[in-house]
């Protein structure tokens, strides 16, 4: 009886996890490599919700003290600001894009430099789909390639 209960619980728990994997699909994730000493960076990705209406409720990463969802805005005068998004609604059957100049996950208080790192882990928590962990490759951008000589 105990064994059955234990097995059922395990099965149920695993089912929850795979449910999360099926419902939410993360693609094209990447994080900006930033200069050593800079404590913030941005993560971009597409979030596809194949299931029912869901919400992204929290984010975290071992490499940073905290992770928050922000969106960049530039007004008609050219003034750029950022707004924090506490909860992101993701309707059923839609794909949300996090890209430069728009929404991004801001990593705050980087505990180590991203320079030379291959990947960082990002944990996304969804209201229905639960926890999704993404391995995010570090991308060098804006860094002048010194091999390219004129």
């Amino acid at each position, binding site marked *: 009886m105990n064994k059955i209960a234990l097995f059922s619980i395990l099965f149920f728990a695993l089912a929850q996890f795979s449910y999360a994997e099926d419902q939410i699909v993360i693609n094209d994730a990447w994080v900006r490599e930033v200069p050593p000493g800079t*404590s913030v960076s941005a993560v971009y990705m597409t979030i596809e919700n194949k299931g029912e209406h869901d919400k992204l409720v929290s984010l975290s990463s071992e490499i940073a003290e905290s992770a*928050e969802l922000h969106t960049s805005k530039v007004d008609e005068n050219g003034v*750029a600001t950022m707004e924090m998004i506490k909860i992101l609604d993701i309707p059923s059957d839609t794909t949300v894009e996090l890209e430069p100049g728009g929404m991004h996950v801001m990593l705050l208080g980087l505990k180590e430099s991203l320079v030379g790192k291959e990947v960082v882990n990002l944990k996304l928590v969804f209201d229905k789909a639960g926890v999704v962990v993404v391995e995010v490759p570090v991308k060098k951008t804006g860094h002048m390639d010194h091999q390219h000589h004129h």
Partner: protein
Amino acid sequence: MKRRNVFKILIGILVLILLLWGVILYVYLDHNTKSGYYGMVYEREAPEFTLTDQEGAKVSLSDFKDKVVLLFFGYTYCPDICPMTMSVMNNVVDQLGDKADQVQVVFVTVDPQRDTVKKLKSYIPYYNENFIGLTGTPQEIDKVADDYNIFYSKEEVESSSGYLMGHNSSVLLITPDGEIFLRYSQNKMDPVSIAADIEKIL
């Protein structure tokens, strides 16, 4: 028969109006882009300034009077827009090839509190050793931003980053004769087009 004729005339008038509208739009847009420059023509005097660079040295705008200066304002705690602009600047410099020697990219912080000389020293060379990052006292920064019509403000946000900065993110192109000639907003960040503008000027 009469009805059809009236109809045709009305269509004809409509077409004429549309054509006229098209011409007006074309002239208006052309005036804005002025003989084929990608950036927006600004044509204001570039006021002199002296700030401190990432080596701790005093740097003035007049130090670059024989170069085209690409000036923009930002802060190092900016995760999205400023790194993007840095990247565009690097691509512009790459596009220019040998002519890049005649161009100077200058970054001015709107966050002198956190962006000290030491901070800039670890930030700027990462993007490009030839770029210059400038900081100063809050008063000095305030004056330069004001002279250049660059709005900026501290946003106390409910975020563990402490505070974020809102700031004008346009890139200003200053010609060797001390004029802010062109202005590039965030939707005009194509490196190839910016480089083409610079080549026209040099």
